[in-house]
């Protein structure tokens, strides 16, 4: 069945809430407004306001409340209207959710999913266009996912809801409307398992979330130039499936990492480090990163486009790594 990413999330939560009444949804506008991006359409009608909780604008307050509820045995799903606002809940996420199991010596668990869109949409400006996954990946105790397809979104969200740990589940506004094949009924995708989204021989691209779609487009165009790209989507960013990336690099000998987030201390730096550590001898040359520009996101379209990796830039990076072109556009140094 072809459904949207949005509907895939809706199905995943709906099925899990039917399966387990410890699961509830909490966040701003999740009830009668049906979610700022309409992900929870029909929820308040089916589950009632006791399990679909509209909150005031109080990210620290309701995220902390959900963490407390998880400590007491419930399985909350927190919807952040966007991850930009999740910054107000960072204390709760980093100092409480991520640490409570460890600090208690294993006595307490925090089974919670904190989800919502990250990354840029179109011209929303600096405070609404950020890819913060590296922040969360940095924190021991959290697991982080950023699925790109409806199929992965549904299967991973179901796994996330069933997992006994705090999980940061990053969606994207520009993905909600994208469509893809999703199996009927109950299936899950294991946490921490990458998938090869395109088989190829010449170069490996690692890309996740929206950037997977960019990489797939670039690969199609590169194929016409006779360049055969393999694309690995980690899907889960932490724990990262280094094995899968290394296996691909062993085949192709070349790696390009594409991420929308800022370059400096970005997730790609970590992926590169893991690959250098495990597969240095298999690399034919240095790893190349294609990243967002290290600037607050500008509003105007031309500058916004310049700040976000696109098909052209990914293609340039692939040609560069193969010694077939110039270096990628210089402001992404």
């Amino acid at each position, binding site marked *: 069945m072809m459904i949207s990413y949005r509907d895939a999330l809706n199905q995943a939560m709906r099925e899990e809430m039917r399966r387990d009444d410890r699961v509830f949804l909490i966040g701003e506008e999740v009830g009668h407004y049906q979610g700022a991006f309409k992900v929870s359409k029909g929820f308040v009608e089916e589950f009632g306001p006791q399990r679909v909780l509209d909150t005031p604008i109080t990210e620290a307050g309701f995220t902390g409340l959900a963490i407390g509820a998880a400590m007491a*045995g*419930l399985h909350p799903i927190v919807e952040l209207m966007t991850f930009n606002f999740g910054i107000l809940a960072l204390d*709760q996420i980093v100092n409480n959710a991520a640490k409570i*199991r460890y*600090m208690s*010596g*294993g006595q307490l668990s925090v089974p919670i999913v904190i989800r919502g869109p990250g990354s840029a949409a179109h011209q929303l400006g600096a405070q609404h266009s950020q890819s913060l996954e590296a922040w969360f990946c940095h924190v021991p105790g959290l697991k982080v996912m950023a699925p790109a397809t409806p199929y992965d979104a549904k299967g991973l969200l179901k796994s996330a809801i069933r997992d006994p740990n705090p999980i940061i589940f990053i969606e994207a506004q520009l993905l909600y409307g994208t469509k893809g094949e999703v199996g009927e009924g109950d299936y899950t995708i294991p946490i921490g398992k990458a998938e090869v989204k395109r088989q190829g021989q010449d170069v490996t691209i690692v890309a996740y979330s929206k950037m997977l779609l960019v990489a797939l487009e670039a690969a199609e165009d590169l194929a016409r130039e006779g360049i055969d790209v393999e694309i690995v989507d980690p899907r889960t960013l932490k724990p990262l499936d280094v094995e899968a990336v290394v296996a691909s690099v062993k085949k192709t000998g070349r790696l390009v990492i594409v991420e929308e987030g800022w370059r400096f201390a970005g997730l790609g730096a970590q992926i590169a480090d893991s690959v250098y550590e495990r597969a240095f001898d298999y690399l034919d040359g240095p790893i190349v990163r294609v990243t967002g520009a290290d600037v607050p996101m500008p509003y105007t379209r031309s500058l916004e486009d310049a700040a976000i990796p696109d098909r052209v830039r990914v293609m340039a990076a692939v040609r560069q790594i193969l010694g077939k072109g110039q270096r990628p556009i210089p402001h992404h140094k």
Partner: protein
Amino acid sequence: MDRQDFLSLYRHMLLIRRFEEKSAEMYALAKIAGFLHLYIGEEAIAVGAIAAIEPDDYVISSYRDHGHCLARGSDPRLVMAELFGKATGLCKGKGGSMHLVDAARNFMGGYAIVGGHLPLATGLAFAAQYQKRDQVVLCFFGEGALPTGQAHEAFNLAALWKLPVIFICENNRYGMGTPVKKAVALYSNIAETARSYGIPAERVDGMDVLAVQTLMCVIVPKVRSAQGPYFVEATTYRFMGHSMADPAHGHYRTKEEVEEERRRDPLALLRRTMLDQNLAGDADLKLVERDVTEAIAAAVKFADESPFPPRDALYEHVYDE
């Protein structure tokens, strides 16, 4: 209340007092490290409040948490072992003084980000409400947490959703060196802060364990019967420095002030009341004192003799596998 109940209050307060004194001693001997915040002077609040709840109610606290943990009935040996960083500690040496947890007693932890555990308390209360259990939550914090945004977010949500949580503000008049007057706009009537959210609030003499317990015995059933949150300002004074890094008075308060306040020692107050009203005799108190002395000695012995965790414990409990 019968004589045994009074003696039990006394026993718990004395246990905390002696435990804290011993901890300070052990800190000086470098058996305990890091931050150590003592509860001496404030014992009546934890003991009086916790005496008014049931075993399956929840308790959550700040980093000044030894008193709440011991009042909840945690084994002093396991608490001391935790302070020593031993594998046998409540949290296997991973929490330390500021992060005691005793899940078996629904003591849900001490938290060291000021204001950060108030939202957690609302969540514990939400879970009780969601599961239609009639549990209540006691949430202890210093007055220094009152100006934090997280406290206000918690008050608002608790009031909005009528959550069964009792916010107990231990007003010891200083947040580190900052007097309450310089930190809280409504310092002379802290309870008003809660009332502005529609949360009923009371002030109680936090040096008087019987007053605390009596008040809590009125409030707890109201909160339990789903009437929503409550707020209690318990006035008190910390007899010691903010932590072991801070001398008993310091520059922010005078020696005279500390000595003046020490005359309202909550333990002495209870002892006097019990003797005056013939609720206990000297012999009873002596017996309690002997018990407590033994318990503390056993705690230190246990902590001392326990092993440190093996290095491979480092990666345990990061995730729930």
